[in-house]
């Protein structure tokens, strides 16, 4: 069956060029970069080159890029590392209610250790209000951490404004940019970002590799202790193939950037408009324009997300949902609930995230297949039956 993969926010296929760039570092160039012989030096050089490419894409310096095992480690390091060095200075952290669990659960962990966390509300489109950030600042605030763009609804946060506020108050500002890389242009200096997390597998790079950007001079504790890798700040033998792959992937992600974003945005809007036009009682979740070019999240009333995903899958379409029944935790998406959606609507959301491989034909196929699926589910939905009876 024709497989249409529209879950690129979950992960992406690794590009052929990326795999090719990585391959020699599994076999012939296998040396440990910490060693002195030439075999090791080749790898050291490869790491440095990747670091330079990443720094350039973020507007950072090479000595501000630190490799981690992924976005989750980068988030943990940023938050726990700042908390650790801020003892005596303060114990208050500002974040939002719609962060990724790598942020939220780390904050909840610190809360149990005695830290005070402010979880900012968002508006109905998922936007954090910079004024709310300003109002939440206290003498004891040690960190502001707000995601660059939301993974479920694609809303892009006012990062520059928040960065400015953080700078004015001399508070470190971290952003989880895992979903934004390759889709949004980022300049850490211009936007006053002190810490930034990213992950390789979200932009056609390998899994198991990520980066924490740490602004030069920022005090932060060490998270992984051991050898002197990453200038003594992140121990562990470098994942050389991963690092090389991440470097190549980010280079490709920012190549022909404007054309790529324009193409994705057009496809995204076609999908949104196509679905909303052909399915009654459904609506877009998230911001209409301040939105990742690859994200479509539609709330479909009277149907449950997992069932919808199963039926889409039967048609060869891979998507995801904020429904409880797909999350493992069985609670509906905390992001959709934070937008003010009632539970039954949060259960009935479906997310399509486009990628470089997505075509117009695929989008048209989804627009054709989804309305009858929804209609079929509604015909067996007691919620829809009640709705029709009360609206006769």
């Amino acid at each position, binding site marked *: 069956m024709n497989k249409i993969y529209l879950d690129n926010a979950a992960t992406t296929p690794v590009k052929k060029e990326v795999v090719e760039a990585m391959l020699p570092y599994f076999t012939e160039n296998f040396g440990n970069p910490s060693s002195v012989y030439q075999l090791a030096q080749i790898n050291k050089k490869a790491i440095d080159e990747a670091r330079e490419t990443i720094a350039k894409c973020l507007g950072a310096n090479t000595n501000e890029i630190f490799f981690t095992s992924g976005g989750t480690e980068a988030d943990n390091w940023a938050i726990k590392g700042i908390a650790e060095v801020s003892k005596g200075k303060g114990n208050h952290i500002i974040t939002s209610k719609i962060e990724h669990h790598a942020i939220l659960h780390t904050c909840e962990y610190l809360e149990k250790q005695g830290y005070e966390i402010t979880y900012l509300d968002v508006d109905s489109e998922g936007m954090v209000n910079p004024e709310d950030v300003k109002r939440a600042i206290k003498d004891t605030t040690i960190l502001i951490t707000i995601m660059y763009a939301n993974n479920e609804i694609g809303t892009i946060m006012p990062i520059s404004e928040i960065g400015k506020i953080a700078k004015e108050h001399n508070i470190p500002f971290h952003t989880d940019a895992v979903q934004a890389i390759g889709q949004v242009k980022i300049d850490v200096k211009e936007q006053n970002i002190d810490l930034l997390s990213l992950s390789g597998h979200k932009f056609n790079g390998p899994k198991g590799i990520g980066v924490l950007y740490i602004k030069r001079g920022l005090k932060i504790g060490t998270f992984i202790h051991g050898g002197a890798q990453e200038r003594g700040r992140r121990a562990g033998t470098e994942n050389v193939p991963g690092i090389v792959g991440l470097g190549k992937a980010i280079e490709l992600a920012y190549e022909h950037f404007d054309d790529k974003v324009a193409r994705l945005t057009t496809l995204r809007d076609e999908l949104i408009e196509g679905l909303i036009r052909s399915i009654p009682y459904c609506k877009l979740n998230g911001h209409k324009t301040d939105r990742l070019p690859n994200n479509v999240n539609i709330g479909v009333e009277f149907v449950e997300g997992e069932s919808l995903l199963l039926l889409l899958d039967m048609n060869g379409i891979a998507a995801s949902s904020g429904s409880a029944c797909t999350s493992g935790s*069985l609670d509906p998406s905390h992001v959709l609930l934070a937008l003010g959606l009632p539970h039954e609507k949060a259960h009935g959301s479906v997310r399509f995230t486009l990628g470089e491989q997505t075509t117009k034909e695929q989008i048209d196929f989804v627009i054709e297949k989804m309305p009858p699926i929804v209609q079929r589910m509604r015909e067996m939905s*007691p919620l829809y039956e009640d709705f029709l009876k009360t609206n006769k």
Partner: protein
Amino acid sequence: MYSEKVMDHFMNPRNVGEIEDASGVGTVGNARCGDIMKVYLKIEDNIIKDAKFKTFGCGAAVATSSMATELVIGKTIEEALKISNKSVAEALDGLPPVKMHCSLLAEESLHAALWDYAKKNNIKIEGLEEPKEDIHEHEEEAGCCNA
């Protein structure tokens, strides 16, 4: 994740719909937790002649509704009472552990429909207890469906 039988009952659910002059109707679950099951029974001479359902829920919820209605048709009330969440799950070749609560929903909706029938006809069905208002009540603390 799901057995072939679950997928079959999900893709081709049996007995979807309503019974206009149903002898008993039972609804359990709630939209908050993402699953509602509504069962209609047609009962004549103590025999369940027909059963229909409508369900808002995941694949397992739809499949267990379908299987429960299939199991109950042709049974006496006493036999119908013996249909448990376990027997529904077994008839589907099992459910993932995290979805077992969906089969509970099927059992409870049958009981709720039988209770409705008993109440309407002013009879007492031996062994049938008044259905809970909300099947998720006992799960509130664990979040919705962390059964």
